[in-house]
């Protein structure tokens, strides 16, 4: 049982939902990322999702693309991010999952990645362009290392695939709220609830909803029908807004606290 599993166990006992905050690692710089993570832990964030910047983020909307691009300009690499997590671990035990496109991990070596990440204190990985069919080796290595592999369910996922995705997932299952890329949305389909209930029938693994969630009201609604919510673009957008300002960490943390307070 790693930190993610323990967190969900703890939340379940308290009958609470998880708040997962995404930020792009290394944007605006590694020091700020570290401060944000530590600060988020104090304002009700349960799990941190750290984005590994990639040159071709094809599942991301403009906000995360921009943050990713700026981080790369500063020379952020997977290795530097792993080192950052190791530093954070000296202070905090908040569960951390990396979000990375497949190529940087593949090039680094899947086995080497899982082992190094685990050693540095990372608890799992989310890879938006790696479906379970192509992830067999990764899953085997991850299992051996008690390292979570989070896979996606989408509104377009058909029944026969659902079971495979559920089986391949550990830590939690990432339920994509809308067909599309990451980014703030005003409206969500009313069919999400029914779909989650259907998946709940075949698994006890936690299901968290992400993509497009940006307001306290949306956090409230979505956390009512799931085990947790993931907010990314809305937070990164706040960081972009306050880039270069001394009170960035305080301002962004305040924004996040408004979201976490609405969790059901």
């Amino acid at each position, binding site marked *: 049982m790693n930190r993610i599993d323990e967190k969900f166990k703890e939340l379940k006992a308290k009958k609470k939902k998880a708040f997962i905050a995404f930020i792009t690692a290394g944007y605006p710089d590694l020091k700020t990322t570290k401060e944000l993570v530590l600060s988020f832990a104090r304002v009700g964030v349960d799990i941190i999702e750290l984005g590994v910047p990639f040159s071709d983020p094809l599942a991301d909307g403009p906000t995360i693309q921009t943050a990713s691009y700026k981080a790369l300009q500063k020379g952020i690499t997977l290795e530097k991010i792993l080192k950052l997590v190791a530093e954070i671990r000296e202070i905090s035990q908040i569960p951390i999952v990396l979000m990375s496109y497949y190529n940087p991990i593949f*090039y680094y070596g899947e086995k080497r990645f899982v082992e190094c990440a685990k050693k540095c204190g990372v608890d799992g990985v989310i890879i938006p362009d790696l*479906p379970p069919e192509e992830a067999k080796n990764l899953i085997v290595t991850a299992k051996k290392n008690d390292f979570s592999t989070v896979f996606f369910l989408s509104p377009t996922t058909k029944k026969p695939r659902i079971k495979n995705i559920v089986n391949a997932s550990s830590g939690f299952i990432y339920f994509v709220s809308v067909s599309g890329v990451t980014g703030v949305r005003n409206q969500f389909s009313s069919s999400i609830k029914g779909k989650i209930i259907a998946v709940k029938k075949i698994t006890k693994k936690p299901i968290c909803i992400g993509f497009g969630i940006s307001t306290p009201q949306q956090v409230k609604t979505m956390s009512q029908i799931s085990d947790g919510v993931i907010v990314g673009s809305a937070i990164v957008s706040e960081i972009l807004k306050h880039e270069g300002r001394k009170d960035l960490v305080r301002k962004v943390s305040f924004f996040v606290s408004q979201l976490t307070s609405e969790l059901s």
Partner: protein
Amino acid sequence: MLSNKNGRFGQFGGRFVPETLMSLLEDLEKVYFSLKKDKKFHAELDFYLKEFAGRPTNLYHAKRLSAYYKTLKIYLKREDLLHTGAHKINNTLGQILVAKRMGKARIIAETGAGQHGVATAAVAALFGLKCEVYMGEEDMKRQALNVYRMQLFGAKVIPVTSGSKTLKDAMNEAIRDWVTNVHNTFYLIGSVAGPHPYPTMVRDFQSVIGQEARAQFLKKEKSLPDYVLACVGGGSNAMGIFHAFYNDKKVKFIGVEAAGHGLNTQQHSASLHKGHLGVLHGSKSQVLQTSNGQIKLAYSIAAGLDYPGVGPEHSFYKESGRAQYVAVTDKEAVSALKLLSKVEGIIPAMESAHALSYLEKLAKKVKDKASVIVCLSGRGDKDMETIKNFI
């Protein structure tokens, strides 16, 4: 036929896309493989290839070019004579018929130089489907005439301002659109790249080039050629001409990549020479990337070769030794373009000129006499500005 279970060519290929696209790709695979056996579908495609695109294309004996090189008997497969000016139309006609069968009302495509965009816009006009083409802002400036051609066909050209503002980013943007509008949109990919079943499907639609060339050569020479040459960016014209000769083990394949300013510079597009195994735009293949797994920018004077990846089946051909891959520089390709224009009265596309350029080295390499087919994948009209400005 080359085996490609699960969309794999050896260790290459596969399907690396967001979950939202997975069910659609499974559907597309099912539809495509059933249409592959459907006589009516092939009859319809053949009709449009003949009546709209202008197939079959000639296999032309380039006598003066052969005389120039002395040791080679050179035939040109004249894809440059096709409607819209290049081999791209073979694939866009095939895919738009698949899109129609799937009931998709909207077509999207990516384009670099604009040739695939033009070929897509033309077939969308032909069938009255809505068409939107993603094109890097930089490429739109460089290829303004092709932008205008697409617009005349009624397509909307969407400028891509993210990343490097070229083909790679246009493809990212097209995939983002596709994920968002997956229910009504068909993504018409222009090369033997992308997630399964695209590399197989595009190869099949382009394989008409090799089927014709093989039959034409047999008729003229009562034998098979010693060499088949084609340029390789993503690699669709090369795969299209190679495929029909796959089992003719005596026929040697040579794929010519773009060495740009030189293989030892950072300005080239030679993924098979300088790339590493990686995953880009949905499939595993050789990719130009940094030691941190970030995708590098490619460069070539030929916009159609300017791509940091290459079709997975080419990586497989290279690994298995079925094809040999070489690279020629901008300068060598421009010389070849000028030579063919002068001695044969044919202006090749800058891309195809890369294949022609390798004839010089090949002519010195062959012992006695050898016969060769060069895939003349497109015409050079679009490149006049580029040539004029080349120093």
